[in-house]
């Protein structure tokens, strides 16, 4: 972070990633012609390509930078972040993947409207998609500012600006179809950018006599090896709340869900998810290596609160000369790819919803065409969180992402679970549950973003709301649905047939 370090490799890396992203996006453009291409790549993406794209989109700044930094500072309990982000896909696979694809809807609000036949539920879902999308975009932009500051000593507003411009150009020119290729490329770039430096750093570590990171100084070795944080009742609560938020939140993230509509059928959706599990599993083996090595070679980073840049600084700290600079360039490229791909995916999801419910509406007697409305939606989706990220204070990349997971788990998870598996869900029940979950977790988010207090039970309960907000949203949905059981949609049975029967069986699907 000091200005005397060479900025060369960082600038080269960021430029190369940006150019490659734009080039692949432009190449994908020739396949993009219709509105369906824009939103869902016309639903013809094969499992392997789609899985790489999902992996590329999902591995955000929090995965690439945040996890290693958290591991360095807090130790083994932070392993629950990557474990939860991966296990979330297993939960999504067994409960949601195939039915969601078979529902045949473009976005989460589309699903809600098709299932419940209610404009009110649709409007509420649209608001929530935009809220979660913006909340998740915020740390991506902040991480980009942080990375460019560490790599080329740029002011923190440069990162958000560069990422927004690249994302906007790519998303608004080619939509989902071209972004699929970009995302798939970025998964492999991110994997390489962590894997190669990790191999070199491990070789250096072995050359130094392989000192054991768990016996050094810093937080007590036992604490660093415990998967429970501070231990005691609060440690247990925080850990389990994190598990609930990540295991159940993945299925409710708008940018994850929108990718499932690009599968050709329900069976392909399942197979895609299985490949995603494997891709994420391979990737998440790497951040712990950086966290552990950081404890030996970069222990002071944790002390000065610079743990988010551990992955970027470690190669320079461990390897001198040209090799160290090249490895730094590589991890910078990977980090930048992480911001670009996740932001693109979120921008697509939010723009899709905004273009259907806001920019596609009739204004003063004029109505934008499908593609023009999508582009206007993309601008809105990106510019708002970019401005907020420049204005708002930094609250930690992984922490904000964790809150987005908690909101998703408290709102869309109950809606999807009950909508897919329970015929008795009613529009009133869905609205009540979404409101309870959204307000509960939203209150916690607001409180966490404005205060810095982290001790005591109130701070613990509001800092990790999922363990109470998810069950209360689920219970509200069930109870209110039972109270309004007369308003169960007439087509619910037919819709269940559509969700659960394989496409090969010739049935009327409503």
């Amino acid at each position, binding site marked *: 972070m000091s200005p005397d370090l060479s900025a060369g490799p960082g600038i080269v890396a960021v430029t190369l990633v940006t150019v490659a992203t734009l080039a692949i996006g432009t190449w994908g453009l020739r396949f993009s012609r219709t509105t369906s291409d824009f939103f869902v790549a016309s639903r013809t993406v094969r499992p392997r390509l789609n899985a790489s794209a999902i992996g590329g989109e999902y591995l955000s700044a929090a995965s690439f930078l945040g996890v290693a930094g958290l591991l360095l500072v807090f130790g083994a309990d932070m*392993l629950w972040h990557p474990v939860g982000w991966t296990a979330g896909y297993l939960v999504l696979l067994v409960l949601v993947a195939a039915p969601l694809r078979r529902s045949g809807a473009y976005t989460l609000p589309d699903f809600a409207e098709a299932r419940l036949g209610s404009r009110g539920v649709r409007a509420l879902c649209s608001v929530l998609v935009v809220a979660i999308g913006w909340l998740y975009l915020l740390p991506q932009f902040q991480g980009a500012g942080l990375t460019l500051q560490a790599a080329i000593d740029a002011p923190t507003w440069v990162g958000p600006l560069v990422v927004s411009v690249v994302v906007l150009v790519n998303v608004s020119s080619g939509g989902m179809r071209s972004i699929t290729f970009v995302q798939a490329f970025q998964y492999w770039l991110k994997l390489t950018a962590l894997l190669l430096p990790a191999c070199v750093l491990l070789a250096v570590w072995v050359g130094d006599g392989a000192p054991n990171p768990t016996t050094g100084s810093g937080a007590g070795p036992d604490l660093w090896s415990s998967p429970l944080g501070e231990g005691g009742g609060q440690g247990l609560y925080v850990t389990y709340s994190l598990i609930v938020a990540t295991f159940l939140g993945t299925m409710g993230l708008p940018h994850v869900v929108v990718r499932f509509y690009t599968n050709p059928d329900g069976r392909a959706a399942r197979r895609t998810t299985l490949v995603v599990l494997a891709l994420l599993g391979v990737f998440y083996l790497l951040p712990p290596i950086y966290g552990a090595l950081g404890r030996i070679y970069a222990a002071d980073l944790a002390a000065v609160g610079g743990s988010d840049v551990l992955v970027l600084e470690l190669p320079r700290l461990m390897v001198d000369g040209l090799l160290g600079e090249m490895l730094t360039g590589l991890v910078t490229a990977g980090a930048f790819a992480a911001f670009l791909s996740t932001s693109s995916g979120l921008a697509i999801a939010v723009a899709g919803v905004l273009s259907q419910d806001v920019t596609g509406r009739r204004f003063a007697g004029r109505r934008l065409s499908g593609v023009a409305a999508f582009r206007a939606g993309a601008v809105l989706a990106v510019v708002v969180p970019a401005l907020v990220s420049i204005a708002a204070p930094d609250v930690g990349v992984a922490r904000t992402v964790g809150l987005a997971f908690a909101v998703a788990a408290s709102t869309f998870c109950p809606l999807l679970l009950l909508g897919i598996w329970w015929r008795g869900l009613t529009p009133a029940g869905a609205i009540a549950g979404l409101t309870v979950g959204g307000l509960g977790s939203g209150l916690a988010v607001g409180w966490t973003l404005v205060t810095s207090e982290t001790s005591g039970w109130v701070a613990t309960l509001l800092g990790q709301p999922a363990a109470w907000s998810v069950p209360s949203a689920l219970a509200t949905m069930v109870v209110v649905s039972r109270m309004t059981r007369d308003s169960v949609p007439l087509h619910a049975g037919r819709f269940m047939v559509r969700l659960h029967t394989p496409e090969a069986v010739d049935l009327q699907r409503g």
Partner: protein
Amino acid sequence: MSERPAGEPRAERVRVTGPDRRRSTVARPPGTREIDAGTQLGAIYMGSLMRDQLLLALRILLVLVVSVASLPLVFHLWPGLAGVRVVGVPLAWLLLGVLVYPWLIVLGWVYVRRAEAHERDFADLVDEVER
């Protein structure tokens, strides 16, 4: 638009059609007809498919909870485990940093195989019934 060479006999006009894509209700397998008509039998078919798939999902999730999500509680009840090392690596790091990922893939693979088998059985059932 090509010109027909002079003297060649005019070929008879043939109407080319593809196979009928919308099969008539009569030709469709009886099981699907029951479901489409919303009869009690159709509801039973659908109910059994959904129950099988949901039970499978819940079994996989139960295994996930018992094998992975129980770890914080286990480490809470037996704090000594945090000090256990396997070849120098703390147990928690080995379990949560490495072993959990292949385990998640195995669970996912088992689920996909079983779920597809359920759907094949369902397709066979609605195809064969009352034949």
